[in-house]
């Protein structure tokens, strides 16, 4: 078994590559031709290994999926059109009207909106707990619970849940643990070894690199016994460990139609090759900036799991090791200070994305969470004084200098 980066670059070598191209071609096509009618019948019946239609599978997309399967250690991977598509496809596969999902209010804004506004209108109940309180999670789960859902680092609260401890509670009830691992990726956090059954990634972020394309990934870690799932038991008798991916591929994913385009898959496969290099740089700079901000007199508070005074420091060290991701938040005196700092920056850009090569800053209260009332935002851990900085891979001296000159103007 090769290392992470070698696997990301060389892991999959297709036998069917007549020109010997070093990169898998971008198969920009919708459908695929067969030699005769029997062959196409077999393909449609699933009795032949063949692509039929690019909403269902495509060779360029499959290459990305296979590489991520190797890197994650999961048993099956499905690439979709966005991180939100990954979450919605997963919940549609696991839940239904009358079922409930156990989660926390400290989630990415669109994820919360999906649960609270979109899916609850279709009869899925959302139960909020603190991911640090195992007793509350234990009490909240019942026979209608379809999954426990969390983020490996919450965005933008930057809290870290103890996935192994939560997994023990979920397993006791026969409920899968689903984790959005976007901010860490399989490079920094092996979800399979930490009790997570289904891993979600927005590949738009670190994996894309450079903010080139939108995409999402669903990884089945192969750790959950689907015979315990009332909804998927019927599938389990036929598909065994492949139950979840079978339900996705044969029904949910195919019918919802949130497929990843071959172009986006190609760009993200390219991004994957340099993932570890970019993450190492981003994490190193994040820690240095966190130290800089925490010492600055104008900054009221700095939040980063890699700072020893963070409430999540111990569990972050245990689960992630010495690297705690590429996002930090900090608080200034008021909104005016936040806006003034943002407007004074020259290197760091004002935009909503994370884990781009470029460092990006945003005021979550007035943007990502703008659809919520003030008291709802407070309940989600969003403060009007908070700025989120997603640290890119620029020279650290330039980033510090940019922040320094901006803070001096306040």
């Amino acid at each position, binding site marked *: 078994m090769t290392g992470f980066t070698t696997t990301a670059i060389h892991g999959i070598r*297709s*036998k*069917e590559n007549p020109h010997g191209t070093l990169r898998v071609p971008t198969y920009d096509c919708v459908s695929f031709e067969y030699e005769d009618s029997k062959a196409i019948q*077999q*393909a*449609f*019946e*699933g*009795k*032949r*290994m*063949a*692509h*039929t*239609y690019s909403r*269902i*599978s495509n060779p360029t997309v*499959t290459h990305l*999926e*296979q590489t991520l*399967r190797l890197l994650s250690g999961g*048993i*099956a*991977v499905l690439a979709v059109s966005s991180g939100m598509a990954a979450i919605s496809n997963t919940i549609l596969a696991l839940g239904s009207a009358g079922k409930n999902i156990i989660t926390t209010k400290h989630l990415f804004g669109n994820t919360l909106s999906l649960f609270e506004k979109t899916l609850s209108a279709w009869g899925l109940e959302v139960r909020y707990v603190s991911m640090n309180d195992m007793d509350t999670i234990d009490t909240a789960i019942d026979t209608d619970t379809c999954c426990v859902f969390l983020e490996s680092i919450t965005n933008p609260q930057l809290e870290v849940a103890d996935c192994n401890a939560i997994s023990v509670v979920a397993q006791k009830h026969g409920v899968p643990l689903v984790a959005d691992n976007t901010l860490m990726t399989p490079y920094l956090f092996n979800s399979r070894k930490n009790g997570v059954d289904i891993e979600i990634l927005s590949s738009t972020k670190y994996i894309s690199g450079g903010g080139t394309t939108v995409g999402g990934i669903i990884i089945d870690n*192969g750790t959950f016994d689907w015979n315990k799932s009332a909804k998927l038991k019927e599938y389990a*008798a*036929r*598909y*065994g*460990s*492949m139950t979840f*991916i*079978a339900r996705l*591929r*044969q029904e949910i994913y195919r019918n919802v139609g949130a497929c990843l385009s071959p172009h986006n898959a190609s760009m993200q496969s390219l991004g994957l090759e340099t993932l570890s290099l970019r993450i190492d740089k981003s994490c190193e700079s994040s820690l240095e900036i966190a130290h800089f901000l925490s010492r600055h007199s104008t900054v009221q508070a700095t939040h980063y799991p890699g700072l020893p005074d963070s409430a999540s420091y111990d569990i972050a060290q245990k689960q992630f090791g010495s690297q705690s991701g590429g996002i930090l938040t900090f608080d200034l005196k008021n909104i005016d200070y936040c806006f003034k700092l943002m407007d004074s920056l020259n290197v760091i850009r004002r935009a909503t994305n994370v884990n781009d090569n470029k460092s990006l800053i945003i005021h979550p209260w007035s943007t990502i969470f703008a659809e919520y009332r003030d008291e709802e935002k407070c309940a989600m851990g969003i403060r009007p004084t908070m700025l989120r900085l997603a640290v890119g891979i620029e020279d650290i001296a330039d980033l510090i200098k940019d922040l320094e000159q901006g803070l001096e103007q306040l």
Partner: protein
Amino acid sequence: MNITINGEKEHLTGQTIVISDLLQIKNVESPEMVSVQLNGKIVNQERFQSTSVTENDELEFLYFMGGGENK
């Protein structure tokens, strides 16, 4: 060795073969795209390398790439 895959008779050299090797022979590059039944029983993916196929065995390979209903 004579076996049946998806209802069609096939002849392979040798007395036995594990499922992962059989998938390679059949050019299945994506094991996460297929479920395998051996003599009517599902074989989980983690057992592909340790489960042997022998004379007269019947296999069903069901790929998740089809466009129709996989009944």
